[in-house]
Every structure is written in C-alpha cells, then in structure tokens.
C-alpha cells in the first residue's frame, strides 16, 4: 500500500528495488528531460524560434453551420507586415485530411460545419499584426440552422450536413440468447458531458522551408509524427520524403494531439512565404483547435439471477462525434465492446451510434470510449447490488471476469485478468479519517468561497471497476520501430515515439541499461528519420515501443556476445551480461561491456508488432482487441446536499500494471489520471448550446486545482503479462476510467439522489 501524499509514498517501491543497479528497469530512474524542465530550459514547441521567422494565425468560423458565399482578403493585404494569406483555394494537394476518413477541409470552402472551423490563415511579422489581419478578412456567411441533436442525426430527419451523411458509424453486438432474462431487471439512463483534454502547452509548431522551396521541416508538438507527416504531405501535394517532422517539446496530450490541428496551415504558410513560420494557439483557440471527449447518452438494462449474477445486458449508446469523423468509429467500437465492464456476461444486445452533428468535433481522449461505457455499467452494478440485496463490493466480486472469460464479442480475455484482486485490494486500503468537527473551511465542500456548513456535510462511499483495451484494434497494423547502437560502452537509441510527458524517454534508457549492461544511454532526436513508432495513445508505447527498443537492444546484445565469443574462442550461448559485465556463465571470463564493445559498431533496427486483430462482423463478433488492463477505484466524498457542493476526500485504487517498470512514474500516472477522472465527475464540461461553445477558457472551464486533489492511496497488482514484451501493461488510461463512476456512486451514497449524469452539478444534487 502506498500513501501518495506522504513522503513515505515511494519508500515501499524503493525498498523493493535496492538490489537493482540504478537506472535499470524496476527502479525510479531519472527522466533525461527532467533537469531542463525544472530549469525552464526545455524547448517546448512554442519556445522555438528561427531567424527571419514570421507568425501564423488562423481565421475561424463564428457559426456552427453556414454556407460560405465569399471570402474577401483584400482588407488584410493592406495591413503592413502581412506576408501571406491562404484560403481553401491555396491548398496545393488533397483538400481534406483526417485520421480515419479524410472528411475535413484544410480550410472550409463551401460550408463551415462547426464553430471554430478554420477558414483562412495569415502570416505576418507580429502576433498582433496577425490578429488585425484576421479581423480585416471579410467572410460572407449564409447562416444555417445547425444540427445539434444526435438523435436527429440517427433518425435521419435532417438533410445531410456533410456528403458522407449524418451517421458516422453504427455497430451492433449480438451475443448469446436474446430472450434470456432473470428475476432481477434493472435499467438506467446515463449521460456524460463533453470533456476537454486541457493539456497545459497549447498547440504550437515551427515550419522551416527548405532552400529550394520544395519541402520543409516541421517542429511539432504531436502524438504521432508519421501520421502527421502522411496527412501534411498529402495536403501539400509533396512526396513524404520532402516533409520531415521533428518532435517539438510536448506540453501534455491526453489524445488531443492525435488529429491534425495547425500542421498543414503552418507548413503551407512556410512554403508560401519561403520563411520560417511559428504558429501557436492561445487557450481559447486551443478549445476550438482540437477534438474533445465524446459526450454520450447511454441506456442500459441488466438482467440477473436472484443472487445478482448477470444474465444479459442490453444497451443503446450514442456518442456525438460532432462535425467530422476524427477517431469516432474507433471510439464507438471501444464503447460498445466494453459495455459489459470487467464482468462475465453470457448474453448481450448492444447498439452503438456515432453521430455527425454541428457540435465541436470529438475524438481521442484518455480512456477512448471506455470512460463513457464504464460510467453506465458501474451505475448499473450499483442498481443490481441494491436489487439483489448485496453490497457494491459483493456484487462486483460475484461477477468479476477471470482470465480466459469471453467478452460479448466472443473474444476470450487471455490477458491476465486480476479483477477480483483489484476489487479486494482496493477495498482493503485504509479509509480516510472522519471530517473533524472543526475542519478548516478549505477542507469543506465548496472551499473558502462557497462555504458549506460543517453540520450539513454528509459523507459517501462509492466503487467503480474497469476493463480497458490496450493498443490499437480492429485489424490496424500496429507496430513500432527502434534502432539501437552500441559503441565503447555507450548505447544510442532512436525511435519516433512521441514523448508527451509520460516518460517513454526514461523508460527506453532503462530498457537499454537492463539489456546491454551499460549506464550511459544517449537518445537520438525524435523525428521521422526512422520508421514509425505509432501513436502515443491507447496505453500502447510501453508495450509496443518498449517492445521495439527491447528487441533492438537484444539483437545488439547478441552481436556483442558473438563478437566476444569469437575473440575468446567459445560458444556465444555460454556468455551473458551480468550487471555491466559480459560473463562466461560456466567459466571465469568477465569483461566490462565498455571494454567488450570497444571498437565495435553494433547497430540494429527492429520493427515490433503485437499480434493481429480482427474487424467485428455485423453482429459485433470478432477478436478485435489485443490485450486488456483492469483497475478498481473507491471514492470517499463529502457533500453538502443543500448547496450541492462536493469535496472528493480520498480515492483508493488497485491497478493491474503487469509489472511496475518505474514505480514513481506509475504513481504519477495513477494520481494524474485520477485527477482527470475527478474533473469529469464533478467539474469539467465544455458547455455547448446551439453548437456554440460557451466556456472556451480556463476561467470558465473548471480544472482540478491543488485544493480539489484528493488524497490517493493505491496498491499495484504486479502479475506480469506473458504476452507483454516487458511483462508490463500500459498504465496511462485505467486510472481515469472507473474513478468517475466511483465518485458519482459516492455522491449517490451520500445524498440518496439518482445521479445519472456527469459532471455532477450542484443542481443535480440539490434540485433533483
């Protein structure tokens, strides 16, 4: 058990690793980017600067749905300092882009389909000049009535707002006996608001054109360099080799940097002007410039035996994808295939819809469709518990999935599935002390400004448990590339995996130290001068890029041992690396790796793939996912039911991590994910009315602060997964998934209210 807010937090972790060499797998190795980050010297994408540089800026639609009659840029050209103005007709290559379907225009030409859609871009000598130039561009819009109700998109009662239609995807899952039922039937409606990733470092890039004007280098804060390059090159009409992407420092991502934002605009301005272009969004523009978490409405009905064992689930899930496709088809599939949660379920009828509307586009955010499903199935488990006369813990234990159990897609869960342990260990973690009678106002719901009366505060406890798929699904060719060189005892690694804050740069060094017995590991630039590492998303980099680095290092180790074996006339199989030495396992030979590798140039590049996955068939059957991780959360909240104020006091969690490769970093992922799940539970929502975003700022979009952060106590469940190259499962997403329903359940427990919507607002508590 680890008490996160106490200095003792990492003592447990440290004690278990004292026997390990510093910096190897299993230790709290230091981040290679740590020192520059605390000194303010780390170069984030928006810190970049180039000689003769111009600034770029984007003109965006003020309407959620309108026809563009004309765009007149003549006024902007009259402003001193303006060097380029580009609109739809200036896009030299493919006019559209998109991750799954290329259905969004680089600049809107005929129609704008959401508030904030880009219409034009300018380059000028100063950000203020850019702002004035944008103001001087006159766009004549014929304003249309926006389609904002997903149900209208499903019903087909409105004209198409896009040539591809108003329904992005429908997927049904049929499993087992559709007539199956039991003595207990519980149902509920669940709704989730639109959450923003709200990474701290807004979108930014620096595009530097080649001297010949036929290519460029783009320094960009992104999650996926190679996918960006593919889309940018297509829109610019350039061969991919003329577009080189380099990772600019990334200030957080959480899914919001998986889609294109300013990449094409910035590149186009650079090619137009022949000068370096820097673009960076402010916070308001960032809200318009990236996709969000899908708002969802879910109906679920559970059929169970009298003793609370699930017989069948029925669900209808509606995810609003907004104006463009982004990753909505994949988010939807995650939602429907996780509808049962981490519980055995023999029969199911699930219908899922991803709709197209004139609301802000939605796509990837940490948890990717599973967050919505989990909020619904966990609400249902509590209803089932009540109906069966069981405790929330008991009903979950009774239905807990085990390794090998089938999903409602027919896919067996052959990942290690310690669901029961997650639940039991979470429940065994200590409860927080009672709220003192003389508690400081800062510790009360509402804090110092809207002070609850201590006498009114009631405490509640709730549980949530989750299953989350890891890596990419549905037949996607998911792989990662890594190169390892070893020379004179120094390893050099190269990969294109985006470091967004999670610490892959540190993990890669740990792997090389462990496999090669070196202490010094250099990291080459993260760019497109090597094959793809895929996206930093879907809890995948530790597994798949960790797997690639591991495999490249192992190949180099093989070469090293062969060279030593040849030199000493012995079979290579007899040699191994122990600590920082090459040793003869049955003899006395012992040579430091630094000496053994002196003069050698060992160099291997490896592509690592996880096993193939399948598409779902029309009944939603198929082995569409690769692997799964599990987690349980317990929330303790204090609520003032009269004011509708909530204070999340403590979150306890036990997480299935496979193997903790860097315990301190795992703690950081757990605590950070919990804060985001807490935000979704009680604070964070992009408020959209009639297609208009009403709170595109950090003043109005409320994020958890230090005063909102709960105490976190956690337990790591380390059952190494035999499929995982390092035994470790991705730990990024699970922490933010079941914490949200656990908090909602705790509020229900404290108030007796039927909370069916997150974020829970004061009126949902005191006026419902």
């Amino acid at each position, binding site marked *: 058990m680890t008490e996160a807010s*106490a*200095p003792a937090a990492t003592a447990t972790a440290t004690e278990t690793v004292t026997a390990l060499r510093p910096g190897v797998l299993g230790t709290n190795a230091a981040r290679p980017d*740590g020192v520059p980050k*605390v000194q303010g*010297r780390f170069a984030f994408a928006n810190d970049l600067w180039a000689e003769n540089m111009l600034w770029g800026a984007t003109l965006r639609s003020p309407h959620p749905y309108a026809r563009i009659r004309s765009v007149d840029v003549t006024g902007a050209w009259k402003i001193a300092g303006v060097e380029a103005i580009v609109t739809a007709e200036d896009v030299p290559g493919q006019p559209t882009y998109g991750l799954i379907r290329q259905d969004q225009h680089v600049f809107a030409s005929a129609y704008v389909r959401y508030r904030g859609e880009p219409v034009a871009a300018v380059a000028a000598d100063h950000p203020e000049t850019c702002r004035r130039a944008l103001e001087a561009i006159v766009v004549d819009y014929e304003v249309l009535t926006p389609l904002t109700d997903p149900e209208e998109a499903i019903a087909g009662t409105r004209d198409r707002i896009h040539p591809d239609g108003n329904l992005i995807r429908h997927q049904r899952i049929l499993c087992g006996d559709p007539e199956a039922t039991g003595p207990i039937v519980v149902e509920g409606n669940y709704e989730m608001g639109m959450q923003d990733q709200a990474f701290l*470092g807004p979108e930014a890039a620096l595009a530097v054109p080649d001297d010949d004007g036929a290519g460029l280098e783009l320094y960009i804060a992104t999650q996926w360099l190679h996918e960006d390059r593919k889309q940018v090159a297509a829109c610019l009409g350039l061969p991919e080799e003329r577009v080189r992407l380099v990772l600019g420092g990334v200030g957080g991502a959480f899914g919001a940097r998986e889609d294109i934002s300013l990449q094409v605009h910035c590149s186009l301005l650079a090619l137009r002007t022949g000068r370096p272009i820097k673009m960076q969004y402010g916070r308001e523009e960032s809200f318009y410039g990236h996709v969000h978490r899908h708002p969802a409405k879910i109906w679920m009905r559970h059929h169970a035996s009298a003793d609370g064992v699930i017989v069948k689930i029925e669900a209808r899930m509606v995810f609003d994808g907004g104006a463009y496709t982004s990753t909505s088809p994949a988010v939807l599939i995650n939602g429907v295939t996780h509808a049962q949660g981490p519980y055995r379920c023999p029969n199911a009828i699930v219908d899922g819809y991803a709709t197209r509307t004139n609301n802000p586009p939605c796509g990837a955010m940490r948890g990717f469709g599973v967050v919505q499903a989990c909020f619904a199935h966990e609400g249902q488990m509590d209803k089932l518990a009540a109906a069966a006369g069981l405790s929330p813990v008991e009903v979950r234990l009774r239905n807990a999935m085990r390794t090998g159990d089938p999903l409602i897609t027919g896919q067996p869960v052959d990942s290690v599935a310690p669901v029961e342990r997650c639940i039991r260990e979470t429940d065994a973690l200590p409860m927080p002390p009672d709220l003192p009678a003389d508690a400081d106002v800062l510790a009360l719901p509402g804090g110092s400004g809207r002070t609850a009366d201590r006498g009114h505060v009631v405490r509640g406890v709730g549980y949530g448990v989750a299953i989350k798929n890891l890596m990419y699904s549905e037949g996607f060719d998911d792989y990662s590339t890594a190169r390892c060189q070893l020379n004179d005892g120094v390893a050099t690694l190269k990969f294109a995996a985006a470091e967004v804050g999670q610490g892959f740069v540190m993990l890669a060094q740990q792997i090389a130290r462990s496999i090669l017995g070196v202490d010094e590991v250099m990291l080459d630039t993260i760019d497109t001068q090597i094959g793809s590492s895929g996206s930093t998303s879907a809890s995948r980099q530790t597994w798949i890029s960790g797997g690639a680095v591991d495999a490249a290092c192992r190949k180099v180790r093989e070469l090293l041992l062969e060279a030593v074996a040849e030199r000493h006339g012995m079979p290579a199989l007899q040699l191994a690396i122990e600590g920082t030495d090459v040793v003869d396992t049955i003899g006395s030979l012992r040579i430091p790796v630094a000496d053994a590798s002196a003069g050698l140039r060992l160099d291997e590049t490896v592509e690592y793939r996880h096993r193939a996955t399948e598409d779902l068939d029309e009944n939603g059957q198929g082995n569409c996912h690769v692997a799964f991780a599990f987690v349980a959360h317990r929330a303790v909240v204090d609520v003032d039911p009269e004011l509708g104020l909530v204070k999340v006091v403590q979150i306890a969690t036990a997480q299935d991590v496979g193997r903790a490769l860097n315990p301190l970093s795992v703690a950081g992922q757990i605590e950070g994910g919990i804060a985001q799940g807490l935000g979704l539970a009680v604070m964070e929502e992009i408020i959209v009315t009639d297609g208009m975003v009403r709170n595109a700022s*950090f003043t109005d979009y409320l994020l958890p602060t230090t005063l909102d952060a709960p105490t976190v106590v956690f337990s790591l469940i380390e059952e190494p997964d035999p499929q995982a190259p390092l035994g470790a499962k991705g730990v990024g997403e699970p922490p933010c998934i079941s914490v949200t329903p656990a908090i909602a359940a705790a509020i229900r427990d404290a108030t007796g209210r039927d909370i069916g919507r997150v974020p829970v607002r004061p009126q949902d508590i005191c006026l419902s």
Partner: protein
Amino acid sequence: MTQEPIGSPEIYRLQVNGESHDVQDAWLGESLLYVLRERLGLPGSKGACEQGECGSCTVLLDGAAVCACLVMAASATDADIVTVEGLAPDAALTDVQAAFLDEGAVQCGFCTPGLIVAVHHLLEHNPEPSALETREALSGNICRCTGYGRIFAAVDAVVASRADQAAR
C-alpha cells in the same frame, strides 16, 4: 490605405534576473510574458491561459508572485523581476528543483517552471506550511499531468530538508 507598423519608437528598460534589458521597437500592448519569451530570450515562463488562471507564467515581481501574462511589460520598468531562469546559477539546481525531480513531480513539464517559482515564493514566506496552506498557496498553478500528489511530496521534501539543515 496601409497602416503603420505596430512597433513603438519608445525604448523601455526591464530588470530581469539581475540584468538590465532595453526593449525597443516593441508594440506597447505586449505582456511581460511575451517580452520575456520573445524579446529577451527567456522562454522558461510559459503561457497556457493568457488570463491568470493557470500560473504557468508565474514570476517574481519585487518579490511578489504574479502572472506575467497579466502584467504589461512597459509597466514593469521599475520592478525587480525574477524568472525561473534566475533562481539558480547556470546548470545548478535549487533545492526545490531537485526535489521536483527526486519526487517525480515532473511529467510534461509545462506547468513546472511556474510551480517552481510559486513553491520558492511559498517557502520564502512560510517555511513550514501545513498541507492545507501548501494547497492554498499553489491553487493558482494548474498541473494537468500529475494530479499534484508528487508536487506535494516535493514541497514536503524541501520543507524537511531545510528544517534539517536549520537544526544543524
């Protein structure tokens, strides 16, 4: 009709990290954050909200922790300004910076410089803050990655080590 360039012919002088900087040809509407980052080569202070909500641009202005995005640069001419770059001599780390690394308080790092300045400011004025006092003092600095747990651990570590040194 071509408008005039936006740069002003007026020159003003800023005192940053003990050095004097002349600012010229600047638009007078520029914030202190913009001038530090884009004109003085001090990009350590970060901009994440432009409205004083996130604290990423926290600097010391005559010893007070302020959001540089809310200060007009041209109005700060008489102030002693300290940014994250001025907390320790080149390549050295303050105890707060070292504790952030040791305790795992750094992930993406975008909020980190502002938090480092804010923690220095807190411990200067309150060497042994209670847990609630720490939370209150840092509540104007948003971190999206860590959930703050490791940041609290870093503050606690600095408090303990400073108390330990004082006791010797």
